[in-house]
């Protein structure tokens, strides 16, 4: 799709350029869609054990978010060390807080 790019830019650019095509994003979209549908279906079915449903839901959400961040937000690209550190640090703080909220309610 993008290989017919006749720009005078350096070869290096066109090399990296190849990686980016709509296919990748559409794959990401279909994956996200599938994960979302699984999550909704798991709830709509309503037959499954409650704890197990929670696990499915959280797993689907986490996988979907990782896919979106890696592909759509370009986090898998080079030069994203500090963004990754930043997001992980934020997630770390959030996990401690969420554990706090749950622990303190259920204990």
């Amino acid at each position: 799709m993008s290989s017919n790019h006749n720009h005078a830019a350096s070869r290096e650019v066109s090399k990296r350029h190849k990686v980016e095509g709509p296919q990748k994003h559409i794959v990401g979209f279909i994956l996200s869609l599938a994960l979302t549908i699984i999550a909704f279906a798991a709830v709509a079915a309503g037959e499954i054990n409650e704890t197990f449903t929670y696990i499915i839901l959280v797993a689907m959400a986490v996988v979907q978010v990782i896919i979106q961040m890696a592909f759509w937000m370009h986090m898998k690209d080079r030069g994203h060390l500090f963004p990754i550190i930043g997001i992980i640090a934020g997630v770390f703080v959030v996990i401690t807080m969420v554990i706090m909220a749950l622990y303190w309610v259920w204990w």
Partner: protein
Amino acid sequence: MAAHAHGHKVKRYSGLMDWLTTVDHKKIGILYLIAGLFFFLIGGLEAIIIRIQLIKPMNDVVSGSTFNELITMHGTTMIFLAAMPLLFALMNAIIPLQIGARDVAFPFLNSLGFWTFFLGGLLLNLSWFAGTVPDAGWTSYVPLAGPIYSSGHGVDFYVIGLQIAGIGTLLGGINFMATIINMRAPGLTFMRLPMFTWTIFITSALIVFAFPALTVGLVAIMFDRLFNANFFDVANGGNGVLWEHIFWVFGHPEVYILILPAFGVISEVISTFARKRLFGYSSMVFATVLIAFLGFMVWAHHMFTTGLGPVANGLFSIATMLIAVPTGIKIFNWLFTLWGGSIRFTTASMFAIGFVPTFVMGGVTGVMLASAPADYQYHDTYFVVAHFHYVIVGGLVLGIFAGLHYWWPKMFGRMLNETLGKLTFWTFFIGFHLTFFVQHFLGLLGMPRRVYTYLGGQGFDNMNLISTVGAILMGIGTIVFLLNIFITWAKPRNASNDPWEDGRSLEWTISSPAPEYNFKQTPLVRGYDAWWKEKMEGNTAMTPAEPVGSIHMPSPSILPLIMSIGLFVAGFGFMYDKLIVAGLGLAITLGCMAIRSLFDDHGFHIEPEDQDEGVQA
């Protein structure tokens, strides 16, 4: 210095307008310094009144309600409006110079950060004039701070003032993280960063990840107070303990936000005046990162008596104690930096050396407090008051004094008077220990904190008197410091590039004060202690990493001030339930954001021929 002519169509201001529109990190640093000192004096005055009220049993200088207002405003002002801005002053004045940068990553945001902080702080302190002052403690525990038990506007001032000031702090944190990551001079790798830059980097990260929690907490309490939400209203399913958690999830990292920069200052000052490389640099970096990391997992040690149960109390006890290890590493590294050195006693180094044992005393009481069962006795007594003043005043404020005396010539081109400086040190230092040492025992003998008075004959009387005397001595020390500023202000600006002669990092390679563009040519860094390394090899200047050329500068802008005023107005609108005013204020702010986005700032250039006259304050 007056704006000079050049071929670019950029408006440059002078006088007051220059200060209101500046995006120069050095000037913003000075603005932070002035604002920080201003609020420091207000907070100090509140402290003196508190101590005078407690000078003897059943004193009645102020009433219980006024006393609660004083302690609330003293705590809030000192932490958010004095300590943090003074740190931001040092950060702004020094970090870009230490990393060989011409400015911070976001000069506009830097200015915005200052003005939101300042107007937020102003809003908070206007409560004294509005006659309804926040009085639920700086922690604002609900339900006392909720709409039922604080029905006036007092706590609203706290909530909205901190919310606005918090925006500024968050922007500052992001700015300095980005600056340190992206703007380092060539060759200045992370493991060559001066210790002060490292601590500011970590502090900024703590700001970025801790302040949003406060933002949400304040939003929740604001919704409860202004829009009848039920976050903390027990009758409707809310829970007050949630506020405690949210507050301390922010509040504990906040303590490290305050103390880490002081660690950085002390490292720089001790190393300079011992004429010796910082001992165990890499373990210092590691310890800093570890303290920051652990800092997020210990918040519940402020809540041992809340009733979280033995499992939580046990875990948080252990986690808290662990922090003593990296802190201990730092203490011994400082001592061994001094060991074998050639120690010169200047005001800055005396503050730094005084810091070490004082901070150790504050640190060990911290470990004592970490032991939950013993904390059932210490909690919310004067023991805790003594502990955190040892850490914050004995740690942070001594660090700030050390930093100010040390970098004063770099900020203003003048040396502070050493005799007055040493007088400041001794009065402040002795006053400090007098004030707070006895408070440990007051707490153990059964005196709770935040009491506006106490009955006689309980064994509290003498120690409270000693404490008050000490507080007055600290006040005198502060006044001497101000005198020093005024007296030296009249002196000529004659500080050399490296006025202490033993400077080690890049800020000492350029003139004092630094020119507008900091570095005529970006320096090439060849190792840790870049400037010291060059000096030892007999060089008189850094190797430049680029030829002399035209220097790009950001344009000044009044928008940050207007945006902050917008938030200020919106704050009052929300507080007094005039949603139109609130909407107008927010519209001003958002409108300025749009203007900033629409009209790109192309900045201007300082051409090589203009660069030598570009020196300015």
